């Protein structure tokens, strides 16, 4: 029972998604001794998923002329440092005022701002919805709910006009706030708060905790792992934003790395020998932070993903 589990694990009940793996694998082994077919399938899968990334990286270590004449390269080239030096430190773009480093900082601001902003805003809203009874509660809930129905992609033009009207083009606020409007985070925390046993609230009330204390002393510490999981996912989502930054940022000093990918294509058109290596180098740089975070916090990431999508 969930109330029981909270005492055992220190966090509200979560269906054991990973714990059964060892047992079932053991059982599988018992049924069929060799798993050569499985390993072949998996190795092909790894080749499919990793191959393109590997080729992209190795190719980026060659110089453009080699790539242009000989195609994409599987071996490691001798142009690694020049490529990445250029991508990270050289001014690019039409106005030559942004570097890969600068774009990465913008991406970091977007990723962090989006993740942190979303967590704070949605935790507060979910707390109000789950733990309070008030006249407009249901209405607020449905309004927030409606944001799940319409992704940003179907209302880009009017959204752009609103942000333009507010004078927020080319600003971090204009970049981040509209992305927070979608209520995925609120729903995730609502779901989580509902799984917190009611007895904890009652015990806290007897211990003299009011609404603020209960939130700060009990609920927030209790949500730590959930916050971390949602942070990882939201950081990745924020870092990877593309469409909105394209519309919002015309000033190159606000470009994110992912936005910069588009810029590199623009420069490329019409070039005799495009800087393939630099384009791929920028792609590698754009993927490193989110990929590292996902790999390092893999367990938490999967938990957050599987739980939040329910």
């Amino acid at each position, binding site marked *: 029972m969930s109330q029981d589990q909270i005492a055992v694990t220190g966090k509200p009940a979560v269906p054991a998604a990973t714990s059964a793996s060892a047992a079932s*694998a053991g059982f599988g082994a018992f049924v069929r001794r060799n798993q050569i077919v499985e390993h072949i399938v998996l190795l092909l899968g790894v080749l499919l998923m990793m191959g393109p990334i590997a080729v992209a990286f190795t190719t980026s270590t060659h110089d453009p002329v080699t790539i242009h004449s000989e195609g*994409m390269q599987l071996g490691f080239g001798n142009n690694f440092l020049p490529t990445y030096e250029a991508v990270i430190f050289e001014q690019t773009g039409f106005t030559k005022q942004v570097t890969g480093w600068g774009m990465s900082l913008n991406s970091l601001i977007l990723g962090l701002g989006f993740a942190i902003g979303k967590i704070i805003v949605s935790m507060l809203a979910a707390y109000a919805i789950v*733990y309070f*009874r008030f006249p407009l509660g249901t209405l607020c809930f449905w309004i927030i709910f409606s944001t799940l129905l319409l992704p940003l992609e179907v209302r880009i033009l009017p959204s752009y006009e609103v942000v333009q009207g507010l004078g927020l083009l080319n600003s971090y606020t204009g970049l981040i706030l509209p992305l927070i409007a979608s209520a995925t985070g609120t729903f995730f925390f609502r779901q989580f708060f509902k799984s917190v046993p009611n007895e904890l609230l009652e015990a806290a009330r007897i211990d003299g905790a009011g609404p603020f204390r209960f939130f700060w002393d009990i609920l927030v510490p209790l949500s730590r792992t959930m916050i971390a999981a949602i942070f990882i996912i939201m950081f990745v989502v924020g870092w990877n934003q593309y469409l909105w930054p394209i519309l919002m940022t015309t000033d190159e000093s606000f470009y994110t790395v992912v936005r910069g990918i588009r810029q590199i*294509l623009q420069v490329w058109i019409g070039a005799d020998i495009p800087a393939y290596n630099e384009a791929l180098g920028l792609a590698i740089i754009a993927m490193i932070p989110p990929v590292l975070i996902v790999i390092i916090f893999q367990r938490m990431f999967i938990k957050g993903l*599987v739980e939040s999508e329910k």
Partner: protein
Amino acid sequence: MHKAQFQSPIFPYLLLLPQMAIVAIFFLWPSAEAVRSSFFLQDPFFGNETFVGIDNYTDAVTRSDYGRAAWFTFLFTLVVTVFSLGIALLLAVAADNVLRGQGPYKTLLMWVYAIAPPVAGLIGIMLFDQHIGPIVDFVALFGWEMRVGVNYWDSGIAMMIVATWKQIPVNFIFFLSGLQSIPKGVREAASIDNPSPSGRFWTIIFPLLAPTSFFLMIINITYAFFETFGIVDVMLKGEPGNNPVTLVYKVFLDGFRGNDLGGSSAQSVILMVFVLALTIIQFRLIERRVHYT
């Protein structure tokens, strides 16, 4: 179970204020504006507008390029959903069965999730590039001269492949966690009742995965429609020309390039209705799932 335990006249409103403000300004207002402007014809030079009723809608859906985009979007969605689900299921079943190396396989198969769609698109156009792309060289061996960016279907196929590739990890993660939540006892009972592993898979495991599969289908359709924008944009290098585009990309093109605010808004509203229908289906399914468990 009702949790609402605190009573306070203003505190809950303060808690909701940030979310409601953001939703009102950046969601409700633009959405309402999209619906409103879909019934008007805007003059891009003088800024005045005239009410035209549903003309924008009839114009939009009767234009041949809209029909082409809709048809392509349908095929694109079908191919991406079927292949990314199929490949992911195969990999998840294999990963669930292996005794050794499950951890590393899992990591290697899932981390493409973290790559942004446009970044995947960029690697894609390199791999499908006519001068340097190894995939073009490879299919040339079979006599297929692939000309991505020039030939309509060659571009479309390349976009489908990249979009499928990008979506495999998330399906894999959900399928694997679905497989691993099937109780050991059920598998053991099945192995006593049915001697054939593939028979067991199709009669026991696959039906138990059905809720996950339905859920993922919705997720994949949403992905193919909306989240592939970056892949499409980068692979077309921002210049669609004679190449296929998805409906969402067309909303963007008509609105920002074509300055056809009314037409773009009408297309937005059509997509809104589509998403609404998807969401209703999704909630029906979730309801049923709750009912069953």
